């Protein structure tokens, strides 16, 4: 009797950590290969391009510094997003929360009249609160009225962007140079210290690393972390257990919005020292952080690693702009491809193919 090979596809109940890592790695590699194809079409050798990127972002002192500098907001936003995503709150609004944190910090720096030593701490607190408030609005709308979190956070991004535009073109308008609008420069006491010769505003970096660790501990070892996980996995059971969805959602967005706000403070007080046009404050950090958090599989510690990856890509984009004349938008290609292959690869995590001998 002859047998033939058949296969069946069935749901995989649980995906092991190793498999997840392996599949994610594969997805990233696939993304880079695909990007290489685009390079080729454009007329640039992919190998050459990747060499440039790696050398530029990790190989030189300046490049490494730039990479670390870009990692900071990605880290902060990313950690916050892992918490939000764990509670199934799709916070697409990190960009707007970052900007509002920057606005709060700028306001304090320029107008609060606080004594110098208090300025920076106040800016951080204000920035946290500003971002948190911006994130809490969609949170309240979701819990109280059932509004879709994706849409509300997305809309709030644009409201924030135009709010910043309004500020720098209107009430907070400073000297205008060459058609760009920005606010007055902050007083020196509001400038974050940087590592000599670089733009790395290390207090924010340290803050980010510490918060990543703290959040990891929170999720795995604390009551609130447990509540977040339950709500994220099964909201009905959470209700059954008496976990308040309102409180947990608010907590989660307080953290997520607040951390994005902190990122905004860092950018404003560490890099620009004034309030700029929104596209200059955040080059899509809020959106890129979504991929950072996704790739990290919502693990705050893993965000440390994934934020470096995307910082490398961003710095690489700068390098390529200078050496190959390609526009900075290139990094969107990388980001888009990675995200795309990541979600495409999830099918391998959800289903497994098993071969069987059939008669």
């Amino acid at each position, binding site marked *: 009797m002859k047998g033939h090979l058949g296969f069946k596809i069935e749901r995989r109940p649980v995906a092991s950590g190793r498999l997840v890592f392996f599949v994610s790695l594969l997805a990233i590699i696939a993304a880079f290969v695909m990007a290489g194809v*685009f390079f080729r*079409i*454009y007329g640039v050798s992919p190998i050459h391009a990747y060499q440039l990127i790696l050398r530029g972002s990790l190989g030189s002192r300046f490049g490494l510094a730039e990479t670390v500098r870009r990692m900071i907001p990605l880290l902060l936003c990313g950690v916050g997003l892992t918490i939000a995503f764990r509670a199934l709150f*799709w916070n*697409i609004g990190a960009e707007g929360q970052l900007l509002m944190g920057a606005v709060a910090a700028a306001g304090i720096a320029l107008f609060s009249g606080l004594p110098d030593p208090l300025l920076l701490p106040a800016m951080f607190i204000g920035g946290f609160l500003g971002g948190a408030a911006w994130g809490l609005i969609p949170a309240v*709308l979701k819990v109280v*009225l*059932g*509004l*879709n979190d*994706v*849409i*509300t956070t*997305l*809309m*709030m991004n*644009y*409201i924030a*962007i*135009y*709010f910043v*535009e*309004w500020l720098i*073109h*209107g009430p907070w308008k400073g000297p205008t140079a060459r058609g760009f609008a920005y606010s007055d420069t902050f007083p020196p006491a509001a400038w974050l210290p940087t590592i000599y010769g670089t733009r790395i505003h290390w207090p924010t970096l340290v803050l980010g690393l510490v918060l990543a660790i703290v959040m990891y501990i929170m999720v795995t070892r604390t009551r609130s972390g447990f509540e977040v996980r339950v709500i994220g996995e099964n909201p009905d059971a959470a209700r059954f257990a008496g976990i308040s969805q309102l409180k947990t959602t608010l907590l989660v967005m307080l953290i997520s919005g607040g951390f994005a706000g902190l990122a905004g403070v860092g950018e404003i007080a560490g890099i620009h020292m004034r309030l700029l046009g929104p596209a200059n404050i955040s080059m899509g950090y809020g*959106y890129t952080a*979504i991929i950072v958090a*996704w790739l990290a599989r919502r693990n705050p510690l893993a965000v440390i690693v994934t934020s470096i990856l995307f910082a490398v890509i961003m710095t690489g984009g700068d390098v390529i702009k200078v050496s190959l*004349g*390609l*526009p*900075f*938008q*290139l*990094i*969107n*290609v*990388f*980001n*888009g*491809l990675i*995200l*795309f292959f*990541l*979600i*495409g690869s*999830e*099918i391998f995590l959800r289903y497994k193919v098993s071969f069987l001998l059939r008669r």
Partner: protein
Amino acid sequence: MGWEIWIITTISRSLAYGTPLLLGTLGEIYAERSGVLNLGVEGMMIMGAYSAFTTAYITGNPWLGILVAAVVGGAFSLIHAFTSVTLKANQIVSGLSLTMLGIGLSGVFGRGWEGKPLPATIPKITVPGLSKIPFLGPSLFEGQNLIVYLAIFLVPLMWYILYRTRIGITIRSVGESPATADSLGINVNRVRYMCVFIGGVLAGVAGGYLSVIYRPAWTEGMTAGMGWIVIALTIFAFWNPAYGMLGAYLFAALYHLSYRLQPWVSPELLKAMPYAFAILVLIFVSRGTLQKRMGAPAALSLPYTRGED
């Protein structure tokens, strides 16, 4: 006399700028009505703009450009449909990735196309007779083009299809209750693919319109967030093509007036309006029966698998 010119110009410009918004919104309404949230509209629009411009430049035929834009937008949307409907992946993330990809690819390949003039664009139309009507004549029937009228024509057509035809009932059922539709033999996946495709095609055409007709020119990032406005307008329209038209032209008018109204309202705040209004609309329909009457399709952004009921 200045007033007359002012009103005519405003209406005329609103029509022109509102057209890509309207096209995009109509497409997104269909996609969302079938239950798929397409956050990739911005990417599809800008790829449409890029491909339309380059095609029109190379071939000298602007219509071909628009056609190519439609195809490109549709192709992109099929990718989104594949990941969202077949792979049942997270639709939000899928859409975002396509937007990033679209912005990135058009930015990269669009290098070197900036500043190039377009030799021929589609002709302006002046409707004889109708253009003589005072006020409405010059504003609506003079100096517009075929795509503008096409967009206007699509509104009643798409409205009728959605609410008065079998296809429309099918689409709406798939978006509200895919399990029900499935149990009646409707191919949920096919309907969703089709609607997402329509959304992509119209988004592509909208982008093409911008680069080949409205400007005409290519600049990196020229859609400037229009895709996101479309998403807001879809909500503002209560997922109804008729209100979509209202919203698109209204917003276009506000946009056009934003510089005029500067002494009274700052232009940035006006630009923020569609987004704020979208949230207000959502709040408005969040109450019970209103949600059923006018709210979002119940299955929006939820992947469907048979047997998981």
